[in-house]
Each structure stands twice: as structure tokens, then as C-alpha cells.
């Protein structure tokens, strides 16, 4: 049996993995909550975020963390454009259209990136990669600390935005009942654009942080995280931000404990077994409504 030190290490790696999942899933659930649209191309926003960060850091030469902020801003605009040009025209015309549009977007974004940057692996070197903090037998890289803190901060900022500002409250209102929100004079189409922009920026943030943590990425790097993000928001409850947070953490922890006790080949299987269990007992997810 593993000793407590090992269990703490596995927990730490689980929380770290969970942070990237949370950023991706929060954006996805935000968009779903407001528009009830399933964007299967959400993983491509993470991939694009990584590539734009790479472009800003390598070609323009800015600090990698500044590059991530630039990539977030650009991706917010890409998200708004995607909503305006691709999803708004088909809103309310049926789920099949949404699926086909998002599958088309996957092809467009992947091929665009492959055309511009090729299909080789890219990486971004963090200036802090040498700095680690000893944590028992583990070395905690500064980049990981930044990722965990940045995730916590951004979630706090979203919470404040949604509870303390008029626009944020309008977003929540639209999420709860679109028709009623419209009747109350809320410009729901503006809220759609805003949520898509915010969701895309969060995905870009996740992609940039993930890249800087020491990964190699290519134009297909968004595919696997996208599937995981879907599983997470289903576990957490579609449209629920606390659900995305809980789901992301649970997912990260389940994957890592499975990797330790059963072997890394069990990571994906365990996460989907978890999904099945949650759906059996709570069909609407952990934080889902009673719809």
C-alpha cells in the first residue's frame, strides 16, 4: 500500500491536471449555459490559444505569459466572430445543425493551423522553467504554481463578474431563462457574443498555460482535451460553472489515482466509468438543475 507522502503527490498532480480541464470546461459550460449550443470545436480554441501564444512568444518575442494574454484577447475576438458568423444563423434550428457547424469548424481550424504552422510539434520555453519549490520529495515548478493560482483567480473574477455586475447578472439571467431575460429587456444576442468570447478566451488561457508548462503541441492537440471537457461538463451538470470546477478536479484526481493504482493505461477508462456512475445516480450531473 502506498504511503501518505505518495498519496499527497498523486493528489497534487491530479489538482494540477484538473486546472487545465477546469479552464476548458468552464468556457464550454458558459457557452452552453447561455446559448444551449454544443460547440464540439471548443478544443480547437485551446489548440489555437497555444499556437497564438507560440506565435507571440517566438515570432514577436514577448514574454510567454504576456503572449498568453495576447492570445486570449485574439481568441475572444475569434470566439465572437464564430458566434456571429457560424452559430447565430443556425440558433434554434436544431441540434444537428450545431453539430455539423462545429464539426466543420474543427476541420477549418485544424487545416488552417496546419497550413500556417505546418504539422510539426511546437513548444514554448518558460523563462521560469528552472525555478522549482521543493515540496517533500516533489519539486513544484513555479509554472505550475502560476497555473494553479491563475486558474483560481480567473474563476474568482468570473464569479465576481456574474454576481456583482449588471452584465454578469444579465448573463446568468439569460442562462436561467432566455425568453424571460428577453422580456426583461436583456439583449440576449449581445450576451451570446459575450459568452462565446469569454469561453474562447478561457480555452485559449488553458491552451497557453498548458503549452508553457512544458508540452509539445500540434494542430491536433485540441481533440483529446475537447472530449474530456465534454465529459467534465456532463459530470458537473451542463451549464453549471461550479459543476465544471468540481467535475474538472474530480476528473484530474480520478485520472491520476487510476494511473497510480491501476496503471496509466486506465486513465481514460476510469474517467468515463466515473461519468457513467455520476449519470446513473444524478442524470443531470452533480450540479445540474431538475430539467
Amino acid at each position: 500500500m502506498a504511503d501518505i507522502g505518495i498519496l499527497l503527490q498523486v493528489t497534487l498532480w491530479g489538482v494540477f491536471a484538473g486546472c487545465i480541464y477546469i479552464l476548458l470546461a468552464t468556457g464550454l459550460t458558459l457557452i452552453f449555459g447561455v446559448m444551449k449550443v454544443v460547440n464540439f470545436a471548443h478544443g480547437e480554441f485551446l489548440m489555437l490559444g497555444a499556437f497564438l501564444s507560440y506565435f507571440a512568444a517566438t515570432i514577436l518575442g514577448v514574454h510567454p505569459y504576456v503572449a498568453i494574454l495576447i492570445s486570449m484577447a485574439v481568441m475572444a475576438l475569434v470566439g465572437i466572430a464564430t458566434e456571429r458568423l457560424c452559430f447565430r444563423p443556425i440558433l434554434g434550428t436544431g441540434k444537428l445543425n450545431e453539430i455539423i457547424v462545429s464539426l466543420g469548424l474543427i476541420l477549418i481550424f485544424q487545416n488552417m493551423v496546419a497550413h500556417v504552422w505546418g504539422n510539426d510539434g511546437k513548444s514554448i520555453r518558460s523563462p521560469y522553467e528552472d525555478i522549482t519549490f521543493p515540496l517533500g520529495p516533489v519539486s513544484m515548478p513555479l509554472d505550475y504554481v502560476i497555473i494553479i493560482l491563475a486558474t483560481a483567480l480567473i474563476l474568482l473574477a468570473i464569479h465576481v463578474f456574474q454576481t456583482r455586475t449588471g452584465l454578469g447578472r444579465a448573463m446568468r439571467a439569460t442562462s436561467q431563462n432566455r425568453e424571460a431575460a428577453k422580456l426583461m429587456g436583456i439583449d440576449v444576442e449581445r450576451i451570446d457574443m459575450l459568452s462565446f468570447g469569454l469561453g474562447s478566451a478561457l480555452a485559449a488561457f488553458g491552451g497557453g498555460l498548458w503549452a508553457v508548462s512544458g508540452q509539445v503541441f500540434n494542430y491536433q492537440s485540441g481533440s483529446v482535451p475537447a472530449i474530456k471537457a465534454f465529459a467534465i461538463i456532463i459530470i458537473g451538470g451542463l451549464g453549471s460553472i461550479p459543476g465544471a470546477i468540481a467535475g474538472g478536479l474530480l476528473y484530474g484526481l480520478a485520472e491520476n489515482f487510476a494511473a497510480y493504482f491501476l496503471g496509466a493505461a486506465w486513465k481514460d477508462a476510469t474517467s468515463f466509468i466515473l461519468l457513467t456512475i455520476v449519470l446513473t445516480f444524478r442524470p443531470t450531473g452533480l450540479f445540474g438543475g431538475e430539467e
Partner: protein
Amino acid sequence: MIALLLLGIFAGCTGAKETGPSETAAPGTGGEAQGPDSVKIGVVLPLTGPASSTGNDMWWAAQLAAEEINAKGGVNVGGKMVPIELVAGDTETNPDKGVEAVTRLVQQEKVDLLVGGFSSAITYADSVIAAEEGVPFVITGASAPVITHRTDIDTSWFFHHCPTSDDYPYWTLKFVNEVVRPAINEKFGFPEDRKLKLAVVYQEGKYGAGVLSGVKKALEENPDWKIELVAEEPFTRSETNFQTVLTKVKEAKPDVVYPATFINEQVPLVTQGRRDVGLNTIYLAVEATDDPDYYSGVGQWGEYSIQETRFSPYAVPKGPIAPAVNKFREDFKAKYGKYPSMMGAGTYEGVYIAVDAIERAGSLDKEAVKAALAETDLPEMIEAMVGGRITFTEDFRESKFQLYMSQLIWDDSAGECRPKIVWPDQLKEQDFQLPDWYEPGE
């Protein structure tokens, strides 16, 4: 915006194809004697899809070989000099499309011979057509031994000029036993007969499982090697977080860790092992990661790790093949603006092997060419071969590569690590070093 996006998808779909048409790389050479007007070689390769950069490399290398041969007058087919004509068969990095591509090459283009093939899964599927139609296939890029060992089709048409997943662990562990193990014993004062503890972390699927079974086979067949396997951990393809699995590996107290990965897995594995988990060991690597993307991705964390290789982007082995390697690299760079990869090197040799067999057969008759290929005995070209010769084994028609080991050493001017060949003696540039931070298993 839409226009831009459409442009993107359009360009993405067609861009790679522009580089791979079935163009003739030949000056026409006439002749009065009866016989063929050209030798038509089908090159099976992924010009599009995830492996398209590898495919382009293979295509360019094949063209370079064809141009060199044509510049010297072409191929002597039974007394008549004819040019080589290359035809690309794009597998689109997909087994089904590979079958279509080979079918087209064989039935419509009526090629005399096939060269290339990339990925065991794709080649496993598309080589069936070559066997059924009876076309000789010089396979230069599928590492699974099953390609020529299978019994469900007639594999006598296949000539495997590519190290297999049995070869990688054999040479790598031979090196570990001869060089790394004594170095550890000496530095830490261990007895000479202490067994070195080896951990294998492998990608699930044909490739990774192939390396693991190659490790077991090599250890079984060489009981005098003092190496024991203390951990074998699989992971799913495209894994990015290895901290937990490496924590588990660390508990097994290995002296050396042997990952069987692709580049996008090897980079986070080595980085997280050294930086996060504190698994300060010697990491080995399969030749698939000997690629510029690996060196830029792994950065300083790759320092002192071992790269098994047969043709490196940054290292040239000492010895008789050095001038040929340098010439190939520089000619390739002058023409295409970048250095060739290992897959390019194999394809380049494949074209020469095919031409040699046709000249000895004296005709384009496929049975005669097949018989001549089986008798191949060429001096090694740009990849080191066992005994310095390219020959195919009688049982499974495999050529035997002399794989060599590089150690990654930090290079300030590159801002990355660069491989330095440390083994075997006849090819090495410098000696293997055990780093100060190295920690043995116990």
C-alpha cells in the same frame, strides 16, 4: 473572416499535394535496343495527413536519388539505359487510403517496383496489395517485424530495409550493458556483477508493445547481459501528464528508464521526470524522437539522455560512411532548404537498392527482380549496416542496421541539446558521461 477561413481550409487541403505530383525526375535517354522506356518506381508515402512532413521528406529524398541516378545515364536494364520515373502514392497517413494508393500504383500506374511505406499500421494494410499482385516492395519505414513475418499473405515480395522494434531494444540494451552499467558500478562502487534495473514506460498499441516485447526478447536471448526489468508501465497514446506514472516508476528504483514514445510524449515525460518528480536517471529513447522538434521541445531537461538512432538530424557518425552522409545532407539541404530526416535517408537508400536489383536482374520481370533483391549485397550507403553491407536475411528478408547511440549534450550556441555519438567505438564522437545529478536505483 469567412473568406479567410475558407481560404485556410482550401489551402490546407491542397497545399501538401502540390509537393507530391507524379512528376518525372528524368532526362530522357534514348536507345535503339528493345525494352522498356523507363523504370517506374512507386513511392508509398504520406504526403497529406498528420505525417505529411515525413512524407514530403521521403518524396524529396527519393527524387534526389532518382536525379543522381538519371544524371549518370539512368538504369541499365538488360543493356539499355533507361531513366527512372517516380510515381507518388499518397497514403494520407491512413491505412484505408494506403490500400487505395498502392492499388492505384500497381493497377493503373503499373509500377515495376514499390519503395517506401511509413507506419506499421498503414504498411500492414497496403502491402497486402503488393503481395497479391506480385510486385516487389522495398519497405523503408515500418518498424513492426510482423510486416515480413506474417503468414496470411505471401511476404516473399517484401524486403524490409528499416530497423524493427526488435532491433531498437537489442542495440540499446547492448549499449546499456556494455557502457552505462559499468559506469554506474564504477561511480557508486557497486560490485561488478550487480544487475542494472531497467524500467520500460511504453505507449499502448503496436509500436510501444513491440518495443516492450523486443526488450524481453533481447534480455531472454542474452542472459549474459546483467539487466533486469523492474517495471513496465503502459500509457495511452498522446498522454501529456506523466507525473503519476513516473512516481510509480520511481518506487521501483530503476537505474535507467526506457520510454517507447513519440516526440509529443517523450518531451513531457522527460521534462516531468527530471523537473517535477525528481527521477534523476538516464532516459533512453527510440529513434523516432531523433528529430529537431524533440531537441527544441525537451530543452535542458534532455541533457545526458540517450538517443538510439540510425540517421540523425544533428550528428554524423565517424568512419567510412561519414563523407556519404555529409554529401547527402548537404545536397538535400541545397535543394529543399532543410536537412533530411531518418525516413528520408531510408527512402533514398531504398531507390538505390531497387535500381541495383533491376540492373542485376537485367529485366523488369517482377519475379526476376524479386530474386535479384534477395541476392542484394551492396556496400552500406548513408546508414551504418552490420558488417558494412546491405543484405537481406534469408528467413524474413530484413537488412541489419548497426544502430548507434547518441548522448544529448547542451550546446550554448544552439540554445538546445545536440546529440553526440557515444557508441559503438567505430562510429563514436566522444565518450558516454554519467551526469553529477544522476541517482542510481538504490
